[in-house]
């Protein structure tokens, strides 16, 4: 096969992959139609379990990284901005780069590495061991019980953890910089709060919601692509992580253009 043939084949594969993924997402989410008792007890217990695993258990790691990123990245940005333009553009830079950009992306990367891989492996192993089929025979819907709670939890976790990450990172960055470079942290934070309006909050929420949807759906999609061989589990896990990151940055790029 020549180079162009190879490129063409890759494009066709990518196109079919996106169609498959979209169909999977639509089919999974369609189980939550209007007449259904959304939070039936089995789904609810699965949802709670996932929320603890994806959200609560990640708080320590997120806090630690937020402090490090605040001191290492945000404080450097503040220093550079102070050196170049003085304090005038500081809040705009903080709002744009740290809160809207770094917070969601770093949280997304952590969730891809931590939860997306775990979900793909968990679902893959469950499928390989043949544990899903008997539940289907008892009338339990795979999408309803396995997929939707994981996606919903990923969305909730991404939104809340990104907000938490952004707040901690900004506070650490500002206070650390104020201590080192001797300027008023209170003033900077007040200015920053004043720049936050409904638009900024909406974009932040939509962006994180979308990130969570991508990460959760990608993890479940690849986890359930495992068929009968245990060797497929690490393969699909790897694909879930790599493609999760690719789609995360693509989505981030889209939001960057959208909010320019």
């Amino acid at each position, binding site marked *: 096969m020549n180079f162009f043939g190879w490129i063409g084949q890759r494009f066709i594969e990518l196109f079919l992959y996106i169609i498959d993924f979209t169909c999977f997402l639509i089919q999974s989410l369609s189980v939550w139609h209007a007449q259904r008792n959304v939070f039936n*007890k*089995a789904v609810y217990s699965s949802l709670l379990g996932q929320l603890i695993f994806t959200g609560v258990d990640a708080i320590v790691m997120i806090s630690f990284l937020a402090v490090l990123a605040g001191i290492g990245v945000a404080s450097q940005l503040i220093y550079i901005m102070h050196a170049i333009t003085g304090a005038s553009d500081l809040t705009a830079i903080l709002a744009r780069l740290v809160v809207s950009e770094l917070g969601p992306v770093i949280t997304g990367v952590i969730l891809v590495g931590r939860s997306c891989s775990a979900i793909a492996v968990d679902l893959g192993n*469950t499928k390989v061991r*043949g*544990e899903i089929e*008997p539940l289907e*025979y008892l009338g*339990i819907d795979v999408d309803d*019980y396995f997929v939707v709670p994981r996606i919903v939890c990923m969305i909730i976790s991404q939104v809340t953890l990104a907000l938490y990450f952004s707040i901690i990172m900004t506070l650490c960055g500002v206070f650390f910089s104020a201590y080192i470079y001797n300027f008023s942290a209170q003033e900077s934070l007040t200015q920053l709060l004043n720049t936050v309006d409904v638009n900024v909050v909406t974009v932040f929420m939509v962006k994180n919601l979308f990130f969570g949807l991508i990460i959760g759906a990608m993890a479940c999609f690849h986890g359930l692509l495992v068929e009968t061989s245990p060797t497929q589990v690490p393969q699909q896990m790897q694909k879930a992580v790599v493609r999760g990151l690719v789609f995360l940055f693509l989505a981030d790029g889209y939001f960057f253009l959208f909010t320019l």
Partner: protein
Amino acid sequence: MNTVTGKACIQAYAATPAAEESALQHPPLDCRILPATLTCLVGPHRLQLRAYLQMLAGISKAEHGKVEIFGQLSSELDKSSMRKLRSRIGYLSGTAPLLSVQHGLMNVMLPLLYHRNLSFRETADKARALISDLNCDFEPTTFPALLNSFQRSQLALARALIMEPTLLFLEVPFHDLGAQQREEMGKLLGNHIQHRAVCMIGGLQHTHFLEQYAQQIIFISEHKIINFSGWKAFMQSQDREVKALLSI
């Protein structure tokens, strides 16, 4: 044929399952499965029997002919009606394990939590009562990986019975059990299938159980299907293929 009369839980009219990955021929099946009777599908090919069992259970659709479950054509049911129907049918798979990420009690509670709007406490109480009724001598909150094959089979049976189904499917219920454990499993099944229509495969792994409880034995091979009205008729069959199966 069966001496028990009444409205059939399942009726198959010249039904053949989809071939799927198997290259085996599937002869058309005509049968009635009546309430409070046990029907066992026997034959030389496990995959073939499984295909017929899943077709009768409404899990897969008949390629030809039709299958009625509780008077409803299985091929015409939409997703939601099928889910409702499935909640009335118990399915025990001896080869397919319990959900390993949930403990035993939760595995048993799961179908009830999913299909009925009961509280956690009510569901747990009901599951514990059933588990105790099945003589489980272990802590039900143990994870399946820490249980032996008989204990897992007990929990799988509890999971199949928790919805109090009137129709029960048993797929190789004696799989992976020793002789003593098969006997115990046979007794447990015997106690819990009295008022239910039961259809099973893998009965020849414990012939004493079939001898005691089977009112209908359906022999299925690549070339023919023969209905027998119980173990005795099956044993007395002069058919060459049946004899060959019994001699194994």
